[in-house]
């Protein structure tokens, strides 16, 4: 499959911070269309900065970012890039522009100059996809965190993007809200073929990913399937990261001398591995 996003050796500093080390320092990665990708990294490793490069909010100082072959440095392509790669942020309150759910979802297609009838059908479709259709006439500030975040996702889906980047979308949610949001984005990826790039601190959300990237000090230091990445527990810990609960459990059992595989990540697999070892 061909990559939808290519990040090639990107260097970046925020203006006015020239005396500090660069925030992105040779970051490179490729994201395949239709895949579910998770980006991990300690606080300040440059994940959010990288995310903002993926739809041309920030432009690299050096290197380049290609979205479906379009260079983000090309200002004439900016709108096409942004409708291809949608972005959802941490705080749902700060992404909503309208006082009624359906008006908010309509915002992006309105900006794209789509005819009213088609906006209506896109809005209904997007709200149904995230299971918020019954709430279309509600005021966003009265919804729960998980519901707000799903409305934010609908607002992006209404652009019909091929990729959605989510920067810690569950950081401000309770466990139930987190489930709602993660379930929704997984469904969008598996059933609707939308490429998902999820930035998160919750390792358990990374278990089902097709590919995991680990960032540190502005570059990608490790990548692979979750099994590959999480089997190296010591390395991740040295980078200030935790690992999924299952990997942590197996790691501790292995340290105490029980012979267990490192790559049983789902709870099922983990339970079976331990059961097998106990026999």
């Amino acid at each position: 499959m061909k990559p939808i996003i290519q990040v090639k050796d990107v260097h970046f500093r925020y203006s006015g911070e020239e005396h500090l080390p660069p925030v992105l320092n040779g970051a490179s990665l490729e994201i395949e269309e239709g895949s579910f990708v998770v980006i991990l990294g300690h606080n300040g490793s440059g994940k959010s900065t990288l995310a903002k490069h993926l739809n041309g909010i920030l432009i690299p100082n050096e290197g380049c970012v290609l979205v479906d072959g379009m260079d983000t440095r090309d200002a004439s392509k900016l709108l096409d890039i942004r409708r291809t790669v949608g972005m959802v942020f941490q705080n749902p309150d700060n992404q909503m522009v309208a006082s009624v759910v359906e008006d908010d979802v309509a915002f992006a297609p309105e900006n794209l100059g789509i005819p009213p009838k088609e906006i209506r059908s896109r809005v209904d479709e997007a709200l149904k996809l995230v299971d918020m259709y019954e709430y279309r006439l509600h005021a966003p500030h009265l919804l729960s965190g998980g519901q707000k975040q799903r409305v934010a996702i609908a607002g992006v889906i209404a652009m019909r993007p091929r990729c959605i980047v989510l920067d810690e979308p569950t950081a401000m949610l309770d466990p139930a809200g987190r489930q709602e949001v993660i379930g929704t984005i997984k469904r969008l990826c598996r059933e609707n073929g939308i490429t998902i790039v999820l930035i998160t601190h919750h390792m358990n959300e990374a278990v089902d990913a097709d590919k995991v990237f680990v960032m540190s000090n502005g570059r990608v230091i490790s990548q692979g399937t979750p099994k590959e990445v999480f089997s190296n527990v010591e390395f991740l810990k040295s980078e200030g990261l935790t690992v999924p609960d299952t990997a942590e459990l197996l790691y501790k059992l292995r340290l105490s001398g029980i012979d267990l595989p490192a790559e049983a990540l789902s709870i099922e697999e983990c339970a079976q591995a331990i059961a097998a070892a106990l026999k």
Partner: protein
Amino acid sequence: MLKDITLGQYFPGNSFIHRLDPRTKLLFIIVYITALFVSKSYVTYGILLLVLAVSIAVSKIRLSAIFKGLKPLMFIMIFTAILNLFYTKGGTELFSFWVFTVTTKGVEFAFFMVLRIMMLISGTFLLTYTTTPMALTDGMELLLTPFKKLHVPVHEFSMMMSIALRFIPTLIEEADKITNAQKARGADFETGKLTDRAKALLPLLVPLFVSAFRRADELAIAMESRCYHGGEGRTRMKKLKMAAPDILTLVFSALMLAVIIILARFGI
């Protein structure tokens, strides 16, 4: 205190007034306010009060909601009343003490003044209660379209309005949270001299502003990410349309203004 602010609140409904085009409602309220300022007598005030009462009845908005909107403005009304009471000369003297005299004219003037403010505000609240903020700002934008030729940033203005209305509840909630956090640390907002209380507000306002700026920053990025690039080439999901009831309402408002002006001309 902050919870009392109901500006920008919308009560969903399907009444005749709810269904009117926001432009009609905006024009009507402008005409109504003009008529209020032309009015000078019991008769004309009576007519306008009747129009307001009928409008409220038709809209099915509860009277208590209107009064709730008036409550935070009680202070301004009392202040206006007192000012007019003491500073209007003429008519027969009712009583006087020290440097103040109260005359019949003063009482009448104060009464009209307060009535005018109350009617003006009730009318405006009826507008915001029956119109979604989005429709309201869209209506404003369309009404002001001619000014775009003069390079007035009409679209930006209406976008700012609608975002402000959207964030009122969010910021009120946040102010409440900060107030409680400061109270938990021993801040006292309710007692003491006025200057002390004003000073106590500082630790409330500073974090509120800081957070508002952070929100604005994030919102701008989120809007750009959703392809916002100004008003050019933008379409709307809900296109505003004027229909027969709108024409009817506008004709009625013109008649109402004409009647009030003519009556005022004859000193009624």
